[in-house]
């Protein structure tokens, strides 16, 4: 029998082994692996849509002795999103990296991909730790790929902070095992009772993960790391890696801790999320460089996601389902949109030789497709219709009014205005005197590259998905969530 869950993890592992052994063949093997992995992920999605919640007991031992993989609507949707985005990033990377970096990029990239899939399917708290480390190490290595001093420094800090997070998480796991005698999420959820154990384990595990999810004020490491990485990596870090950490927080929160710790922590997370929305948007608005802007906007977007926690905690089941769908939709939209934005940024940087927003005008105007992609991505980040983020925000706003918690709505509205400020500060460069790039405009020394059509496609496609597909076709998400309710 074919274990699709296991394959989504095993295929990229195998691919990574192959490209590591035969670097010369990296692009070919890499793309092939990417296609196969995405197919496996899509099959998992189909399984969820038809057969409910697939689960596979690796080694056939069954929990609590063995480790299980499992998927439900929440993880399945994120899994599919992650794989589609990763596939787009791979296609983009084909044209982006010179052969020198290529042979380093592919094996690490496939390891990162594998760890992402593993995290979305994880059902065992210790296995989550191992996977997190794989993710963190691959991500930091990829981020430092360009070898620049700033890049290395930023990603070393990123690696260390990540370790601090996972060590804290691991102590939480140890405490949890001491008290409950199991590492499986479901079993733990069944036997966990309110009390000091739940509080301590929760504080340690969630605290560690929040550091990786870059929830304000634990976001300090993110902007330099994401801004310094090569564009395809930045896209993966912002769109997927942070999402994976966030997903784990959400998963542990819904399944394990929310039922036993009361409303307090949820409100705290919401408040920090609000801080992230405001601070991240403000810094994005102040950023001189495009990639830094995109990185800070990620801090803000993570904030939005956490805004829903207090509402989730307070809502009754049908509403909770609705909110969970909105949260999921917001996360998916941001995944595609942010990837699109970073990939576009990378092309502009290649074309213009820099990413100083104030001087990007000519480059933007000479690449209309890229400008369009950025525009669409911007629309999705602000949460304007018809993007998926708009639907999600509409639900979030309605519920926060309906539940007499209008102050969360206020944060969203302010955040929306700030987001439009930083997005359009960027987009207005698309209008101006007719575009022709010459060395003078670019300050002489920097060398610019011609940008082919093929490499522009992934960015545009992802932005389109974020705005059109997730905007008009989101309804099925709630169907997918179906039974997988908190």
């Amino acid at each position, binding site marked *: 029998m074919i274990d699709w869950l296991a394959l989504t993890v095993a295929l990229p592992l195998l691919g990574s082994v192959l490209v590591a052994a035969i670097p010369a063949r990296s692009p070919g093997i890499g793309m092939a692996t990417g296609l196969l992995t995405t197919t496996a992920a899509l099959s998992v999605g189909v399984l969820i849509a038809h057969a409910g919640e697939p689960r596979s007991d690796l080694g056939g031992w069954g929990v609590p002795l063995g480790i299980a993989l499992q998927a439900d609507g929440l993880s399945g949707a994120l899994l599919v999103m992650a794989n589609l985005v990763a596939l787009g990033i791979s296609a983009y990377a084909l044209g982006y990296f010179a052969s020198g970096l290529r042979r380093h990029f592919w094996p690490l990239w496939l390891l990162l991909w594998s760890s992402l899939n593993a995290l979305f399917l994880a059902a065992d708290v210790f296995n989550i730790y191992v996977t997190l*480390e794989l993710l963190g190490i691959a991500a930091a290595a990829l981020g430092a790929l360009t070898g620049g001093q700033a890049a290395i420094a930023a990603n070393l800090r990123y690696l260390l902070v990540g370790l601090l997070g996972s060590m804290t998480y691991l102590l939480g796991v140890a405490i949890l095992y001491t008290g409950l005698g199991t590492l499986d999420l479901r079993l733990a959820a069944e036997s966990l009772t309110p009390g000091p154990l739940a509080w301590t384990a929760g504080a340690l595990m969630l605290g560690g993960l929040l550091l990786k999810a870059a929830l304000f004020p634990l976001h300090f490491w993110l902007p330099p790391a994401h801004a310094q990485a090569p564009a395809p990596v930045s896209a993966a870090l912002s769109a997927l890696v942070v999402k994976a950490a966030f997903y784990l927080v959400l998963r542990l929160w819904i399944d394990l801790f929310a039922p036993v710790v009361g409303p307090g922590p949820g409100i705290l997370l919401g408040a920090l999320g609000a801080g992230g929305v405001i601070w991240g948007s403000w810094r994005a608005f102040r950023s001189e460089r495009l990639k830094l802007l995109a990185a800070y906007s990620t801090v803000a977007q993570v904030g939005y996601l956490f805004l829903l926690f207090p509402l989730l905690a307070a809502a009754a089941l049908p509403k909770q389902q609705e909110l969970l769908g909105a949260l999921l939709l917001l996360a998916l939209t941001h995944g595609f949109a942010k990837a699109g934005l970073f990939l576009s940024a990378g092309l502009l940087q290649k074309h213009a030789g820099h990413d100083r927003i104030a001087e990007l005008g000519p480059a933007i105007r000479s690449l209309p497709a890229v400008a369009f992609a950025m525009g669409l991505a911007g629309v999705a980040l602000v949460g304007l219709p018809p993007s998926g983020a708009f639907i999600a925000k509409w639900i979030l706003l309605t519920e926060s009014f309906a539940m007499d918690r209008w102050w969360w709505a206020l944060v969203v509205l302010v955040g929306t205005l700030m987001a439009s400020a930083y997005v359009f500060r960027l987009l207005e460069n698309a209008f101006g005197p007719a575009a022709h790039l010459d060395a003078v405009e670019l300050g002489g020394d920097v060398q610019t590259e011609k940008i082919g059509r093929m490499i522009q496609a992934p960015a545009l496609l992802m932005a389109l998905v974020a705005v059109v597909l997730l905007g008009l076709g989101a309804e099925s998400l709630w169907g997918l969530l179906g039974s997988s309710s908190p």
Partner: protein
Amino acid sequence: MATQLLFGLVGIILFLLGVWSFLAHRPLLRKLIALNVMGAGVFHVLVAVAYRGLEKTPDPIPHALVLTGIVVAVSATALALTLGQRLEHEDD
């Protein structure tokens, strides 16, 4: 029981010492060492959990976790050291 608690408490103390020196010191190398101390602390706790008295074989699960954890920590440390070294090399 007492042995177990002793190991556990030592583990917790080690962990907190690690946290302390991670937060209190700027140099990245010291932060890295601090992380390894934290790791040692967690592994102590796990080993303590595994202990079931002298007459019974200890719980193999935590032991396995510790082994895995050690390898993971080593890998991360190796990468971090290399990155740090690249930094210093560029500096001088």
